[in-house]
């Protein structure tokens, strides 16, 4: 697996795709990753299905619930990821909720992540103060990087602090929203992207939440190193299946 930082050095306008493990079918986790790699996606957010995903909209909620009904759990996810450790070259980022790590055992979780060749996690309900007090030390021990989110309401002072903690990239949440927001990128959002860009942060920036097609992807890339598409991809996957992943990705990166 390539290192995430290598990808950031090599390319601009990175496309990342979020998908839910074990969806639409339990064994689809690895199939989806290979299809995304084949289509030219730059890095992949591997979503760990959770019963109560607070930051997610209906599409990802539904896919998570479906995956849990399929019988997915963290042990199966790690087993699935282990089988493709050697064959998959596209960097993976793990996205889940803090309680999943807490219950699994923090050290055991981190060890498994590292064993799968992954070094970056996104935990949207891990606040900065908890990171500073406890998780920074834990992640450092395993060489794991935590991705922080910033929003239009995050103060400059806080963004500076987040920048200092960020090693992989900062997740720029496009609007005050949960995942799956629709529509164009507004002037207000552009002003926010420009504000962030003008701060000249050391970290790479990836825009997410509300990115759904070529147009929104291209706009986001003007202000960041790339963007993440989640709900729009899941919707397509649910409707058209793993075989049609390429049809969704190609028009965005062409």
């Amino acid at each position: 697996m390539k290192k995430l930082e290598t990808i950031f050095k090599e390319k601009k306008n990175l496309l990342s795709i979020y998908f839910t493990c074990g969806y639409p079918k339990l064994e689809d986790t690895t199939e989806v990753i290979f299809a995304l790699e084949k289509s030219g996606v730059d890095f992949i957010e591997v979503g760990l299905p959770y019963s109560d995903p607070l930051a997610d909209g209906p599409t990802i909620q539904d896919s998570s619930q479906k995956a849990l009904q399929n019988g997915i759990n963290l042990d199966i996810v790690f087993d699935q990821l282990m089988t493709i450790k050697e064959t998959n070259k596209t960097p993976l980022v793990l996205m889940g909720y803090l309680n999943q790590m807490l219950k699994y055992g923090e050290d055991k979780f981190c060890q498994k992540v590292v064993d799968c060749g992954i070094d970056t996690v996104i935990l949207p309900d891990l606040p900065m103060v908890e990171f500073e007090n406890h998780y920074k030390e834990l992640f450092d021990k395993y060489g794991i990087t935590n991705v922080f989110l910033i929003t239009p309401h995050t103060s400059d002072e806080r963004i500076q602090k987040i920048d200092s903690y960020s090693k992989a990239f900062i997740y720029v949440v496009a609007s005050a929203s949960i995942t799956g927001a629709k529509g164009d990128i507004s002037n207000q959002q552009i002003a926010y992207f420009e504000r962030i860009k003008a701060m000249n942060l050391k970290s790479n920036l990836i825009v997410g939440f509300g990115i759904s097609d070529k147009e929104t992807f291209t706009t986001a890339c003007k202000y960041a190193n790339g963007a993440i598409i989640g709900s729009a991809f899941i919707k397509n996957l649910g409707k058209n299946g793993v075989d049609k992943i390429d049809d969704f990705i190609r028009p965005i990166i062409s």
Partner: protein
Amino acid sequence: MKSKFHPDKNGYYGQFGGAFIPELLYPNVKELEDNYIQIINSDEFQKEYKALLKDYVGRPSPLYLAKRLSEKYNAFIYLKREDLNHTGAHKVNNTIGQILVAKKLGKTKIIAETGAGQHGVATATVCALMGLECTVFMGEKDIERQAPNVARMKMLGAKVIPALSGSKTLKDATNEAIRYWIQHPETFYLIGSVVGPHPYPDMVARLQAVISEEIKWQLKEKTGKENPDTIIACVGGGSNAAGAFYHYMDDEDVELIAVEASGLGVNSGESAATSQLGEVGIIHGSKTILMQDEYGQIVEPYSISAGLDYPGVGPLHAYLFDSKRATFMNATDKEALTAAYELTKIEGIIPALESAHALAVLSKITFKKDQVVVVNLSGRGDKDLETYIKHLED
């Protein structure tokens, strides 16, 4: 005096509490955290809060010596009559307080979650009183089983949005309220229990503390002593228990009994007895004890009572349980129903199903001679009549 049962600066009671929220909610929670104590302690707030509690809610709520109940269980059993409050439960103490906090912060749109509908009604009521826009999230399943409260909320001008995700009960209504809050950061989230991210558990406990503040002087008037031997309250999220315990938590000689709903039985798979079935985890922004599977997926609880049908408890209660300061007991659906029919027959009071769980443990305790017991009768049973009628023949 600083109590060990008050949270530290990060909102922790021992290992429980905190504010595990997405960055999107940070400014909202921070604004509240920076201001809530100052607002609540201000003369202006206190004057308005107390005036409304007196003239609008009807406080102080009576502390009633239930003579026939006392005879039956060989103890002096006092009922703290929160059921006589305007809107029929203790919930209004909190909504009056929080609506004043919201106004002080300049908020005009209010959102809330509700289980049994009592908090939804109490929120819709204060919004009507203050002329503020009100949106209430309620699980689809709860909407079905608490129809009268849904109608009341609508009559009060609130918009009721069904939560269709998960188990379609209180937990999911709370998720939906939080998601809406993320998307509408200009709104004020008026949480109904001692749950959620810091500072909510502490703020709600302070606003419900009026219950134990009154018990103290009322009991002194009646018995010459401020402290009872035992206080009993039911716990879902735990706001009425937090209020009834609040001023007694540091008095170790006052026994605190929290009663959870064990549904069809603690180990039946259909239960909401969180302290017995739960483990440390994070729910709705707070680290606490919650019902979950081995992978941290939150388990859907069950109770006949929509107000106790919650897979977690507030972090204060997790701490009271963990530190053994409070004794946690539980009552099944059937035991709660029996207790409700009993109170109705021998005292002429129809309790809420939630409060009936607290009453149900009276028959499980051996009281010593002249033991003084206060049961927090958190709400009245009007909303549960359909359930009571349905089970009357059993």
